[in-house]
């Protein structure tokens, strides 16, 4: 279980997270919802250790992320807005590199498996720089899954993907949850909340302002709650799923 305890984070003048608490367990799928600039990316980065909180702590199965050795990072698979892919190498080469980095043999079965899942077989020998944004995003997901991480953190993973892959990713998420992995994804789209998540957390003003189980909510009640918290700003963002 990942546990964030009272984490605060500021960047220069801006206070992004304020004494935030959040937990993610194996088998859970948490949808992180919030306005643009609310801090979803910062929160995700802090959960996997890319950013360190100014105060508070993040623990994984009781071990402090900042104090324990780097080996703990093996348990995370992260997809961010930046793809973390090398543009001068091919898809396959990128995956081979990341395999080696995570101590897997560079020619392992996960690579063709994941390329297949993300429908990138045809382009596997193509240089990443020549791929479209959507394809790069898919490859990034493949990269994140390579080492079979226990926790998946997806930051706006659905953006830029067409319908076919949206449902494929949702299926992927559900399957991972069944395999007792913990998944957290951030999204603007309330529809995704109801198709993929078991729990929804609303990030507002630096804290988890609301947390509810999806099976106890309806799109309307969620939207109402969201509006209430953000003072109707959601309407301007076209959040209606």
């Amino acid at each position, binding site marked *: 279980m990942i546990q964030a305890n009272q984490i605060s984070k500021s960047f220069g003048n801006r206070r992004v997270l304020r004494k935030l608490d959040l937990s993610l367990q194996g088998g859970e799928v948490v949808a992180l919802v919030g306005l643009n600039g609310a801090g979803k990316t910062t929160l995700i980065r802090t959960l996997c250790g890319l950013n360190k909180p100014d105060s508070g702590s993040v623990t994984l199965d009781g071990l402090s992320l900042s104090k324990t050795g*780097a080996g703990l*990072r093996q348990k995370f698979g992260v997809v*961010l807005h930046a*793809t*973390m*892919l090398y*543009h001068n190498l091919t898809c396959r080469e990128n995956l081979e590199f*990341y395999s080696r*980095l995570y101590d897997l043999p560079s020619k392992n079965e996960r690579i063709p498996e994941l390329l297949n899942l993300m429908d990138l077989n045809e382009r596997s020998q193509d240089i990443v720089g020549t791929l479209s944004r959507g394809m790069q995003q898919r490859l990034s997901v493949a990269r994140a899954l390579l080492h079979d991480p226990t926790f998946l953190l997806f930051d706006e993973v659905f953006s830029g993907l067409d319908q076919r892959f949206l449902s494929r990713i949702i299926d992927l998420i559900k399957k991972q949850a069944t395999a007792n992995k913990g998944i957290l994804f951030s999204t603007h789209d309330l529809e995704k909340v109801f198709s993929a998540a078991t729990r929804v957390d609303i990030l507002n003003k630096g804290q988890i302002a609301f947390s509810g189980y999806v099976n106890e909510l309806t799109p309307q009640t969620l939207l109402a709650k969201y509006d209430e918290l953000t003072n109707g700003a959601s309407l301007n963002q076209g959040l209606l799923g």
Partner: protein
Amino acid sequence: MGLLSIKVYWGDEMKFLKATWAILCKDLLTEKRTFVTMGSMLVFALIVILIFMFAFDLAVGLRKEAASGIIWVTLCFAGTLSLDRTMALERDAEGIDGLRLAPFDHTVVFVAKVLTNWVYLLIIAVIVLAAYALFGNVMLFNGGFFAIILLGTFGYILIGILVATLNMQIKSHGPLLSVLLFPLLIPLLLAAVNASSLVLNGGDPAGLRTWVNVLIGYDLLFLAAGILLYDKILDE
């Protein structure tokens, strides 16, 4: 966390080496495909040598004496290209986050980058030597000189990667690398130039020993500094 993690890894040295090897291969593969680093270093180095030769239109007798200084200055400047490029590689793909997420002490990145860039610089050094020898019609191939080049370039790359990684995190990272790096290179430069000069032109062997000691000291110091501090540069 650098030192502590290194302790843990003595049991995991294979993994550490594997990860270093992975990064090394990736960098070399990229270089093989694009030839950007070596290409630009080569052109730049040759132009600089040429400029020096014109600017200091030296009498034949002086060319061997001046060789040491000219060659080392050229290498210092050309080296900045590879330093900048090697970190830019990570920055372009924001691959640096990919490396930061990997389950390793970031010293892995340090070791891999030092090795690749040292190789690039050595190759350029050999070409520069040959070019100078050719243009200036002087004999420069000398075992001792090669040894000094090995020591000097190693020290350069060690501190260069440290500073380049610091620099990479700044938004306007390009021009600052030289500003941050060069004042730190003075002892290295002095030692390398003087030792090379003594080796090429003959001179006091005790002096040579002293300079070589300075070089070795510098290399060891920044090897230690790199291993201890590098992790902190990339960790938040």
